[in-house]
């Protein structure tokens, strides 16, 4: 016979057993079970050890939970217990490097920004690629990352306090996700927040403080090297400007020649042809040499305080928390501050009825005076002329100062970031009210009302004195944008669990849900400056009229869903599960309102079979197979299928004449994108789970992809939205956790490794390759069948042109001469043109990986997380600013130019041609870099003070020191961040990531 008992909150227990002797099994979720034999009454004390991969662990899946042992599809889990043990600002940050198949990209180093998460590669071209987030059963509105790297409608994880998180699960395959239907094709991230545990109040206080600074500085020419290059270029330009002009002519001689010709007023200067003579004088008198990056970066301070209380009685349990986070950025003017609160309360009214409320108000302010992206201040700081007049120094082209005559016309980026305002304030309230009623044993009905209300206000202001190109044209600029985003969800489910004949375990779910989402935004801009530099709000703007820049807009959508699921297992040995969801969405075309998303999966726990008993070392083995179809309704617009009108105004006799014209063609067949995943995997535990491994092989096919198919412009439109494309992601995932050492000195290792290959299978009607339009010159990436998404497509540089090349008439681009780069004439037509572009790489890494090592010795713990990616490339559009052929001398250039071609005798490293080149430019492999990196993301050394403080009111305490992102290596010399995304879908002036050193304290009272 079997008898059981549970312990009280403090761990004491008693159990009466009929036998005089026998075996007691002690178990606890998350720990390894232990067996003890007993004979007769007595006291048995037991200490359970932490089980890295317990199969009894309960995993939260869509609309329910399941024992890990019974899972038949691909679910990655992360216990968030460790989140409090290191300084984490955002939940997405915590996911970096933790789970196989989940690529977490930190595309921006600006604090407070959302990370981009991709589950099993990117599968969409014209729609969203980010997963669905579900917090405590509340599916949040999906939000796509925009081409500028931000989340236009907010990131679902904004303002969520990581300290409140209990666990995170990622449903990776369509079989697991299909219960979320038309939103699950990019995976589902399920987040569970902490609940109160029965017992007397337990209070936690966590705090940390530290410093951060830039993890990277770009190698640019030093001021001296810039001068060296400028002199070379100015002399060359002078020589090329007319007959009888030589590099040895002095500035004065040049002036005379020009004045004589009437090309210069007497005493004038033409900086294109005349150098600043002070450059060559010892100590460059009167000039300041500046490293703008050093001026821009700073050491920022971070601090955080988190207080939580939880507890409960038999009838009520509660979890209450508050958090304050203050991050000073690594550059002047940048920072992030957050305040959050949360209360999770659950009331058990009686044996049958339970209800509860989770509510989490939060407020954050992100300060960013405009540091990331093209022509933003970090771009300017990196590229600005490193020489200035001494009496002007850092105040170049601000206030009464002009720009340096040989320099760019930018305003001092230092003064701009010091004086500009760019505040994004988010006030968010996330709430869930639920009730659960047990109708009869095993049958429960649950309903929930969920509201996510996000109010965001963005204020921008740049005062006049740091704007304009000259002292005479300075003008303040400012704006005020904001949006309110509301998601309301009502979920109703019926759950029935039953075990028949002690062998057949059934779990049946049926449900209905209603989802309403609304987005209102407002934008106001000053036009024509402000009345003064004191008042920064728009009441002081000179003019805010103009419908193009100033508007309010509203949009909303409805999603109705019916869903059901059956899970069955026979003696925990043969497992099967099937689900179906039917989604109707207002976003879909009139002919395609409803979609059906089925899934099925099976598992076989081989280790439960009789023949496996005693087959050491295998203690667990499960084979899994799953199939499912999920959808993607992140179509970008709530009304994509409706032919809408846009304003196209005109004027008659200076009167505004409103015009209305069709803005898109009708598409009544607009539908969700669909992903079908087949997944085969196994879980294997060896030596009592000392080694536990999971392996999955998957093929994920995304089809009916939304593509703006090129159509003849004679139709009135250049493109038409069509559900036509197909992309396949194939790969495998490995998770391995080992407990290398147990005992006093323990050492655990968790490894995850993912390989993913991405291939376009179908594009438009005739599969024509689609170059991806670039805002900057010709396309440099292409969508092409048989190739990965967004393959990089540029002309290949194959060396530097020599005189011999010219003599042999190698193909040239335009008016190229000796010392210019030599390009591959791929189509062999004897000249270099845009038609010679070849695919030279793809942006998606082939491998992503993370390794976590945990060491514990007595009170000490040491945690090291190393993660990285391999096999992808990044194309740095920033090269256009600091690394282009034909670049003027004004802007600073990448360090490569130190070893440029200077003469046939001094050809340099062969990477970059001569500084003064006049043939123009074509996008080529100069700006191509591997996006590989290895990063020691986190090292945390902690010490448990528990014993030291014994006897006082403190129950536990831990002190730790963390180095985040401190060590690493990448091969990206053309920008700060190999995962950057900030301008037009690419990197054109990334803000670097921070590295930080932090001291923290955790107290439990």
């Amino acid at each position, binding site marked *: 016979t079997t008898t059981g008992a549970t312990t009280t909150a403090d761990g004491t227990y008693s159990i009466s057993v009929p036998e005089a002797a026998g075996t007691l099994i002690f178990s606890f979720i998350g720990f390894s079970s232990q067996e003890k034999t007993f004979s007769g009454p007595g006291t048995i004390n037991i200490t359970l050890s932490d089980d890295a991969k317990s199969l009894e662990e309960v995993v939260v899946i869509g609309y329910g939970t399941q024992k890990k042992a019974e899972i038949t599809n691909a679910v990655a889990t992360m216990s968030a217990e460790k989140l409090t043990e290191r300084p984490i600002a955002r939940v997405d940050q915590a996911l970096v490097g933790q789970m196989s198949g989940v690529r977490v990209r930190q595309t921006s180093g600006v604090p407070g920004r959302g990370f981009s998460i991709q589950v099993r590669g990117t599968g969409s071209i014209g729609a969203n690629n980010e997963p669905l987030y579900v917090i405590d059963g509340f599916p949040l509105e999906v939000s796509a990352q925009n081409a500028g790297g931000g989340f236009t409608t907010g990131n679902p994880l904004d303002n969520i306090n990581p300290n409140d998180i209990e666990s995170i699960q990622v449903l990776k395959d369509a079989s697991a996700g299909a219960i979320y239907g038309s939103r699950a094709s990019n995976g589902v991230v399920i987040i569970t927040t902490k609940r109160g545990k029965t017992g007397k109040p337990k209070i936690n206080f966590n705090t940390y403080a530290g410093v951060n600074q830039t993890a990277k500085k770009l190698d640019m020419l030093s001021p001296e090297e810039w001068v060296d290059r400028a002199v070379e270029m100015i002399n060359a330009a002078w020589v090329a400007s007319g007959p009888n002009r030589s590099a040895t002519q002095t500035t004065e001689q040049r002036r005379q020649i020009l004045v004589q010709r009437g090309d210069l007023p007497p005493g004038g200067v033409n900086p294109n042809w005349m150098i600043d003579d002070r450059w060559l004088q010892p100590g460059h008198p009167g000039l300041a040499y500046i490293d703008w990056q050093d001026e821009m970066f700073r050491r920022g301070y971070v601090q955080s305080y988190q207080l939580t209380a939880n507890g409960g009685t038999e009838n009520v349990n509660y979890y209450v928390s508050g958090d304050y986070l203050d991050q000073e950025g690594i550059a002047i003017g940048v920072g992030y501050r957050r305040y959050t609160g949360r209360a999770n309360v659950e009331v058990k009214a009686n044996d049958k009825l339970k209800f509860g409320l989770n509510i989490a108000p939060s407020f954050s302010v992100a300060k960013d005076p405009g540091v990331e992206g093209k022509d933003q201040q970090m771009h300017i700081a990196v590229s600005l002329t490193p020489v200035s007049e001494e009496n002007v120094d850092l105040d170049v082209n601000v206030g009464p100062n002009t720009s340096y005559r040989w320099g760019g016309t930018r305003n001092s980026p230092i003064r701009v970031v010091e004086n500009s305002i760019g505040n994004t304030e988010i006030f968010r309230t996330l709430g869930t009210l639920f009730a659960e009623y047990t109708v009869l044993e095993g049958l429960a009905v649950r309903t929930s009302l969920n509201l996510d209300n996000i109010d965001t206000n963005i204020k921008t202001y740049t005062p006049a004195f740091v704007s304009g190109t000259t002292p005479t044209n300075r003008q303040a600029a400012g704006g005020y944008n904001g949006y309110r985003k509301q998601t309301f969800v009502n979920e109703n489910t019926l759950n029935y669990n039953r075990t028949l004949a002690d062998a057949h375990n059934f779990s049946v779910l049926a449900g209905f849900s209603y989802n309403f989402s609304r987005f209102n935004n407002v934008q106001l801009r000053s036009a024509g400056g402000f009345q003064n530099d004191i008042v920064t709000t728009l009441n002081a703007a000179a003019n805010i009229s103009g419908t193009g820049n100033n508007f309010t807009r509203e949009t909303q959508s*409805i999603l109705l869903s019916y869903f059901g699921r059956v899970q069955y297992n026979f003696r925990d040995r043969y497992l099967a599960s099937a689900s179906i969801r039917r989604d109707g969405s207002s976003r879909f075309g009139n002919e395609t309102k409803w979609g059906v998303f089925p899934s099925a999966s099976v598992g076989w726990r081989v280790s439960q079979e009789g023949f496996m008993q005693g087959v050491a070392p295998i203690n667990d083995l499960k084979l899994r197979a799953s199939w499912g179809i999920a959808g993607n309704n992140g179509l970008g617009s*709530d009304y994509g299928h409706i032919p809408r009108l846009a304003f*196209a105004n005109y*004027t008659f006799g200076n009167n505004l004449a409103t015009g209305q014209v069709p803005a898109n063609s009708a598409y009544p067949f607009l539908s969700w994108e669909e992903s079908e995943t087949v997944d085969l995997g196994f879980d294997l535990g060896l030596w009592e789970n000392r080694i536990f491994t999971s392996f999955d092989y998957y093929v994920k096919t995304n089809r009916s992809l939304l593509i703006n198919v090129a159509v*003849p*412009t*004679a*139709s009135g439109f250049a493109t038409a939205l069509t559900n036509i494309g197909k992309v396949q992601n194939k790969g495998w995932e490995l998770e391995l956790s080992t407990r290398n050492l147990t005992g006093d000195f323990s050492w655990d290792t968790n490894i995850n490794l993912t390989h993913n290959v991405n291939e376009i299978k179908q594009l438009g009607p005739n599969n024509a390759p689609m170059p991806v339009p670039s805002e900057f010159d010709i396309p440099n990436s292409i969508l092409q069948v048989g190739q990965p998404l967004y393959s990089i497509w540029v002309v290949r540089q194959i060396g530097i042109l020599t005189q011999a090349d010219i003599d042999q008439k190698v193909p040239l681009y335009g008016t190229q001469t000796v010392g210019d780069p030599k390009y591959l004439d791929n189509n062999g037509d004897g000249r270099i043109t845009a038609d010679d572009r070849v695919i030279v790489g793809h942006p998606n890494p082939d491998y992503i990986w993370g390794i976590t090592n945990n060491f514990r010795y007595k009170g000490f713990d040491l945690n090291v997380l190393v993660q990285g990616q391999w096999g992808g490339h990044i194309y740095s559009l920033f090269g256009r600013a600091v690394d282009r052929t034909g670049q003027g001398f004004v802007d600073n250039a990448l360090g490569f130019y130190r070893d440029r071609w200077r003469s046939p005798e001094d050809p340099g490293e062969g990477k970059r041609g001569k500084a003064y080149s006049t043939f123009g430019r074509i996008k080529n492999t100069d700006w191509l870099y591997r996006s590989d990196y290895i990063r020691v993301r986190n090292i945390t050394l902690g010490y448990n003070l528990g014993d030291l403080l014994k006897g006082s009111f403190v129950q536990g305490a831990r002190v730790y020191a963390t180095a985040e992102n401190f060590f690493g290596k990448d091969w990206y010399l053309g920008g700060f961040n190999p995962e950057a995304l900030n301008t037009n879908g690419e990197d054109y002036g990334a803000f670097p990531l921070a590295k930080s050193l932090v001291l923290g304290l955790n107290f439990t009272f």
Partner: protein
Amino acid sequence: CEDELNQVPISDASTASFYRNATDFEQAVNGVYSTLRGYPDRAFYLSEVRSDNVYGVGEAGVRDWEPINNFAATLATNPIVKDAWDSNYQGIFRANTVLDQLVARPDVITDENLENRLEAEARFLRAFFYFDLIRTFGKVPLIEHTLTPEEVLLVPRSPVAEVYNLVISDLEFAIQNLDETYAVVNRGRATKNAARGILARVYLTRSGPNYGIEGPGMASGEYSKALPLLNDIIASNRHSLVSPYSRIFAYDNENNAEVIFDVQYRSGGLGIGATFPGTMAPTTYFSAAGIPFAGNLEIIPVSNNLLNSYPAGDVRKSFTIHPNYTYVNRVFEPRAFFRKYLNETGRGQDRFDWPINYIELRYADVLLMKAEAILQGAAGTRAEVDNLVNQVRSRAGLTTPLTNVDLRQLMEERRREFAAEGLRWHDLVRSGLVLEVMNAWAPQEDIRNQIRKPITANHIIYPIPTSEMDVKEGLYEQNPGY
């Protein structure tokens, strides 16, 4: 609650909900006019920069206008050329939308005159866009109704003559149904005289030589069809030459008696300001004048040949062309640029927001087109021609009358009169002089050896944009030479 799935846009109208009354249709027609707003920049690049009026090299990298100026072979990917295709077809689509909706909802507008006028305005504009397409590309797909993208994939380029047929019938309808003139609130809408003038220009263009290509010229000899249209404009007594010359373009003298058809603009950050005055002037000029414009537009220099073509005393030169200036940091810019439309004090909120209208057809053009028609064989005498030309010259301050003016002299006079007005290239093409004039000019002007020489008949029109060629292989054939 499944009805809730039928959401309609909150912040946009949809085609289903619109076109319900006369105001809606007026707004739809205004939307067609709105397409004209990009026309002046394009006309400047494709007709002035292409011609012997401009010679320049981008100093800070390759500028979009440069390959047009130097006859590069790569124009099929040029954004300006693409814009000429895209914008004209966008305008045609908008006009077709109005015309189709008028047919589909015949009872919405009860005032028959208004209905006819709106139809005539849409057809006038459609003809205007098709004529621009013919002059730019030669043969183009002929689309008279709104078609779905799938349907358009079946429409190849039509012979130029067929496209002209639509242009002529649209303009004839417009002459019949447009108003003679409009009240102040509608000033700028196409008038009967505008339709007559554009149709006269169409006939002159069609009558020009074909150069052995399928371009705008058909050698159709229709000069005597142009003449009565021009005479009708003159006889209407609604227009006259405005004097002095500068008053034609004065910011405080819009809609003056010289204007027959213009593209109208208003500044003030409403998104309906003009870009062309700023397009023709370099950013450094504005910063030297203390004007806070962002951006970095380079100078598009006036050719020496044009500068030297003005005789002494010609007031048009100094008004049209700014000779040189000094940058803020004392760099001297010796090259000249067009400042015909520029009045810095009248600027709007940025360099893309000027209030000044762009005159597409003015009375001087009517007079000189009449002279051209007569010289090319329409009824009339040389004395009439001399008189017409001398009217225009005398306003320019050239008091010595010309006698026995020939075609070449007439075209040179047009060049000086209309410099920067987007007519030069088309004038050269229709007069048959283009290859001779350009090939004489290029070697002389091209000291930096940037122009691909010789200039051939294939250069008279532009290539079909690559983006259009790529949509469906074989749908369009590329123009020869590209």
